[in-house]
C-alpha cells in the first residue's frame, strides 16, 4: 500500500452537526481505476469535494503524492496534478471548443499566473496542435471553432474531459461521467475511459451505473451513510452481503 497516490486518512466532515463523512480511510493506488459507489446521500460528492479543496474536512488529512491537500486552494491542488470532471459540465460557455482546451494548457505552462501579453493566443502553435489532437481524439474534431453553448450535453462532457486530459493529470476525478446518457453513449464513454486508463492515469470515478463500474474499476469502495462499508475488487464487492444489503440490494431485487 505504499504506492498510494491519494491517501485519505481519518476524514470527517460535518455540516452543522450532520455527519456527511465520518472516519474515511482510503488509499488510491497508482494507475488504478477506483470506483466509489453508494446510495444517494452516501457522501460520495462530499468526499470528492474534500479532495479538490472545495470543502475543508472537519478533521483528518488528505495526502496527494505525499503533499497535504487540506487547506489548499483548488488551483493549488490542480497544479499538483489533480483534475476533476463535474456532474454538470463546468466549461467556458462563451468560448470556442479549442479555446476551452487551450486555456488549461496555459495553466500547465504558466502555473497559476502569467501576464502573457507578449504573444498572440492564436500563435501558440504547439499548444494549439496538441489541443486539436486531443479534441480529435475525443471526437470533437468537427467542433473546434464552435461556441461551446451549441454543443450537446455529451459533447460538453467530452470537452470537459479533454480540458482535464491536456493537463496530463496524475489523478483524474470523475463525477458520474455517464449520468443521463443513453446506452450507446454510455458504452462509447466506457471505451474512451478504458483508453484513458490504459495511458496509466489514476482514476477515481463516482458512478451509479454498475455496468460502468464493473467494466472500468480495478477496485471499488462502497460508501453508505458517510462511512465506508466495504472495499475490494469488483468480485469481492459483488459477493459482499453488506453491500448487497445497503446498496446493491435495492438495485438488483
Amino acid at each position, binding site marked *: 500500500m505504499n504506492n498510494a497516490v491519494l491517501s485519505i486518512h481519518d476524514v470527517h466532515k460535518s455540516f452543522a452537526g450532520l455527519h456527511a463523512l465520518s472516519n474515511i480511510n482510503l488509499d488510491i493506488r497508482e494507475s488504478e481505476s477506483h470506483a466509489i459507489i453508494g446510495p444517494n446521500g452516501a457522501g460520495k460528492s462530499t468526499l470528492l469535494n474534500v479532495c*479538490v479543496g472545495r470543502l475543508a474536512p472537519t478533521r483528518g488529512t488528505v495526502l496527494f503524492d505525499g503533499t497535504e491537500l487540506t487547506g489548499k*486552494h*483548488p*488551483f493549488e491542488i*490542480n*497544479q499538483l496534478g489533480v*483534475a*476533476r470532471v463535474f456532474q454538470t459540465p*463546468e*466549461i*467556458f*460557455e*462563451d*468560448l*470556442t471548443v*479549442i*479555446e476551452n482546451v*487551450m*486555456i*488549461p494548457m*496555459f*495553466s*500547465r505552462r*504558466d*502555473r*497559476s*499566473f*502569467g*501576464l*502573457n*501579453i*507578449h*504573444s*498572440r*493566443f*492564436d*500563435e*501558440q502553435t504547439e499548444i*494549439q*496542435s496538441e489541443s*486539436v*489532437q486531443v479534441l*480529435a*481524439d*475525443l*471526437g470533437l*474534431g*468537427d467542433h*473546434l*471553432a*464552435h*461556441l461551446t453553448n451549441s454543443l450537446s450535453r455529451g459533447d460538453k462532457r467530452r470537452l470537459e474531459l479533454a*480540458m482535464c486530459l491536456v*493537463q496530463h493529470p496524475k489523478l483524474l476525478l470523475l463525477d458520474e461521467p455517464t449520468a443521463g446518457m443513453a446506452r450507446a453513449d454510455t458504452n*462509447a464513454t466506457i*471505451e*474512451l475511459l478504458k*483508453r484513458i486508463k490504459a495511458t496509466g492515469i489514476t482514476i477515481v470515478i463516482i458512478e451509479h451505473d454498475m455496468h460502468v463500474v464493473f467494466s472500468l474499476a480495478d477496485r471499488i469502495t462502497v460508501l453508505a451513510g458517510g462511512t465506508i462499508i466495504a472495499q475490494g475488487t469488483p468480485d469481492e464487492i459483488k459477493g459482499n452481503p453488506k453491500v448487497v444489503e445497503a446498496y446493491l440490494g435495492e438495485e438488483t431485487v
Partner: protein
Amino acid sequence: MFGISKINDIMLLVAFAAIILAGPIILEPIGASYPDLLQKFAIFGIFAIGFNILFGLTGYLSFGHAAFLGVGSYAAVWSFKLLSMNAIPAIAIAVVLSGLFALAIGYVSLRRAGIYFSILTLAFAQMSYNLAYSVLTPITNGETGLRVLRTDPRYLDVMFGADVGAAQPTTNFFGIEMTGWPGFYFCGIVLIAAFAFSIVIFRSPFGMTLRAIKSNQNRMGYTGFNSRPYLMSAFIISGMYAGLAGSLLAVTDPLAGAERMQWTASGEVVLMTILGGAGTLLGPVLGAGIIKYFENIFSAFNESVLNSLFEFMPEDVRHVVVEVAGLFVGDGWHLTLGVLFMIVVIFLPGGLMEGAMRVLRIKHSPKVTNIGKSPQRDIVGEGAIEENLDDRVRTAPARSKPTG
C-alpha cells in the same frame, strides 16, 4: 481556426489610425470638427477602452472608475505645477499614481465579485469624490479645481533654464503647445497606441484567460489558475488607462475638477462602453464618441437652431416638430441619453457593434443575450468565427474517432 489573424489586426489598427487622424474632415459634416470635442473623443475613447479591458473581458462592473481618472488629472496638474509643463512627466506620473491607486482599491474590492464588487468600487469612488471636494482642498483645490499658476515652482523647467514665472504657462510637448489641433493630434496618437495595446491584450493568452474568468470562474480554479492576480492585473491596467485619460484631460486643459470623480462620471464610462458594445475592440471608442457628441452638440441645440433645422416644414407642423424635438435636445439631452441607453440594453445587449454586425449580416454572428457576454469578439474578423474553420480542421491531424 480563430477566424482572425495578425494581418486582420494590423489592418484594423491601420484603419483605426487613419480614421482618427482624419477625424477633423470626417466629422466636419456633423459639426463635431473642433479641437476640444475631438480631444474629448480621443481622451474618453482611451478611458472607455481601459474600462472595457476590465468589464468587457472579466465581466467585473466597476462603478468607480472615474476615481482613477480624477487621480490621473490631479497628478498631472501637480506635475505641471512642481516639475515641468511638458506633457511627458505629467503623463508618466499620472499613469503610475493611478496604477498604484488602482492597486490599493483593487486589492480590497476584488475580494468580492458581482454586485458587491460594484458597490465597493462605487463606495471608494464616492469617498474619493467627497474628500476631494472638501477636506482635501489643499491638494485638490476643491470646487474650483486645481489649476496651474504662473508662480508655481516647476523645478524641472527651472533646471533646464526655462523662464518660469514670466507668463501664464501652457502645457507643451517639447515646445509644441498642447492646445487646439496639436493637442488633438497628440491625444489621437496616444489613443491609437492605447487601442493597439488593447488589441494586444485582447489577442493574448492573458486576454483569453480573462475571458475564461468571466465565462466560468469556478472552472478556472479547477484548471489551476489563481484568478485573483489576473483580475488584479486587469483592474490595474484599466485603472492606468483611466489615469492616462485623466492626465490627457489635464494636458489639453490644465484644470482638474473634483466632479470628474463623481459616481455619475463612472456611470458615464459604463454607458459609453455598453452603448458601443462591451467586450468589442471598437465599441467603447464609438460609444465614447457618441456620448461626448450628445453632451456637446445636442445640448447646444436651442429653439432657434431647431427652427432653422426644420425650416423646410410648413409653419404649423414645424411648430409641433420643434416642440417635440426640443424635449430631447438642449436641456433635454439627458433624456435622449437615457432613452438610447435603455434601447441598447434591452434590444441590443451587444451594443452598437452588434447592431452593425446584424446590419452587415456577418454570418454566424451569434446573438448576444447579455451585456458583455458577447461571444462575438469584434466586427473585424472574429465575427465570422465559424466561417473558415472547416478548412482548417480538415487539415488538422485528426486521428480516427474513438467513438465507434
